């Protein structure tokens, strides 16, 4: 009972302090909002980067072209074998007829080529397998497997060529770009979050510095440590909460204005729809970070001024 009354008194004092220290609260909330805005923007930027990388990865595959006289049953057997590899995301079989249809579609404006094709008695195109790996770095292994398989498979040679060996340089480059951008993104994020935490901590420390005399007075009157700290921790949490709301609000017009541009530039990723779809998650992360950072900063800052300790 006494505990509940104390909780109530401490919370009330925190709210009153937040309201009465109007100017200090306002500046602290604004700084908190800027920091959390940067964090929210980083999250959205990270999501854009991820989406773009996934999209790029999806564009990469290796194609296995078969000889025109390769029996379809052998090709399908190889397809089943390959699709059981753990690295393989999916395998798409393009039959000879489908290949011809695709070729016609691609060259539908080129009468000369189509005429030349019609001159031929039979379909000059072979069947192919389009193989997509889960990670770009795994293509080398898959290509190696196919090489071995055709060598060991003995019997008739059915594979004409595997285009991995032509695309190898491009795939390796993409793999290293993905690795680098993920690592770089992580470093930048950690750096910015550290800087943000320090800015928030320092702001709250300055806000509390002005009341350090009063902290001593509260102790002299016989208030226990946590009774002195409590209201400041509530105030710090309120800074964080208000800052997070402001940051979330500020991210809306930014997403709105960048939405079409991001769609045009990145293809599948639209900042605005990401914001709309993940608003609950963004809210949770920003509020949790803001409140946590505010409360912790206040706790540490006040503790320094609890001087009447023996």
């Amino acid at each position, binding site marked *: 009972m006494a505990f509940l*009354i104390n909780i109530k008194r401490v919370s009330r004092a925190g709210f009153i302090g937040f309201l009465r220290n109007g100017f200090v609260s306002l500046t602290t909330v604004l700084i908190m909002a800027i920091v959390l805005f940067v964090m929210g923007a980083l999250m959205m930027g990270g999501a854009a980067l991820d989406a773009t990388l996934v999209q790029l990865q999806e564009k990469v595959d290796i194609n296995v072209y078969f000889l025109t006289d390769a029996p379809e049953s052998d090709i399908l057997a190889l397809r089943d074998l390959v699709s059981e590899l753990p690295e393989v995301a999916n395998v798409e079989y393009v039959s000879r007829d489908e290949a011809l249809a695709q070729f016609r579609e691609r060259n539908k404006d080129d009468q000369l080529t189509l005429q030349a094709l019609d001159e031929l008695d039979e379909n000059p195109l072979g069947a192919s397998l389009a193989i997509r790996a889960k990670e770009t770095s795994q293509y080398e292994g898959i290509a190696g497997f196919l090489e071995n398989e055709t060598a060991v498979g003995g019997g008739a040679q059915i594979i004409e060529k595997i285009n991995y060996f032509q695309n190898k340089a491009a795939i390796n480059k993409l793999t290293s770009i993905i690795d680098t951008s993920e690592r770089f993104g992580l470093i930048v994020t950690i750096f910015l979050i550290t800087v943000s935490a320090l800015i928030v901590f320092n702001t709250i420390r300055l806000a509390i510095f002005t009341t350090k005399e009063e902290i001593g007075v509260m102790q002299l*009157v016989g*208030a226990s440590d946590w009774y002195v700290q409590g209201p400041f921790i509530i105030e710090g949490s309120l800074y964080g909460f208000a800052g997070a709301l402001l940051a979330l609000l500020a991210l809306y017009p930014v997403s709105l204005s960048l939405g079409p541009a991001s769609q045009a530039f990145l293809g599948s990723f639209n900042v605005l729809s990401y914001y709309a779809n993940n608003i609950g998650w963004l809210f949770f992360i920003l509020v949790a970070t803001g409140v946590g950072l505010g409360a912790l900063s206040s706790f540490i800052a006040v503790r320094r001024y609890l001087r009447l300790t*023996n």
Partner: protein
Amino acid sequence: MIYFDKVTKFYNGGIAALDDVTMTIEPGEFVSIVGHSGAGKSTLLKMIFAEEIPSEGTVYFESNNIAYFGKSDLNKLRRKIGTVFQDFRLLSTKTVYENIAFAMEAAGQRNEDIAADVPHVLDLVDLSEKMDSFPRELSGGEQQRVAIARAIVNQPDVVVADEPTGNLDPISTYEIVQILKKINDLGTTIILTTHNKGVIDSLGRRVITMDEGRVVRDDKSGHYEL
């Protein structure tokens, strides 16, 4: 109730702020401590509410050695001792009422008691009409009366007043002394330090004179002499 046993206090640098002080303060006394600046008056008071601890010797409060007090014991001790300072030390973001209520809340008093006692002490220091004002809206004398109201609201055994009239004009000084006398008449021990000869001479109570950290004179009904 308060007993100093051969108390010495060194601050950094090795100069003794208090030098072998032995004295007793009885319940209900009104004791004034006088001396030049730096004579050790404030250090002596800080020892009583344990803002400082002795380098040598022992301070007893109601037969308990203060040096052995844990945190919660210290908080309880400070609720038994009301403190008043030259610079008032009010909480600037709280109203007069809240400043006084804070001392009761911190002591874990019930809401009904707070609602009853705060107006009562405000009446005692004649500030009932200003209870919703903030400290910055009050004169120095009024602020000091708020500080005294806060100091006595938990019905402490002792009120320690460190130069409470140092920043005040003669009329406010007179009012503060009258309030302290009234509190003393109600049974509370008062320990007062001051530079004001008029205050000491008008009280006609016990005077302890300090010089260079030592007690050099202790008169039952003394005058201000340095």
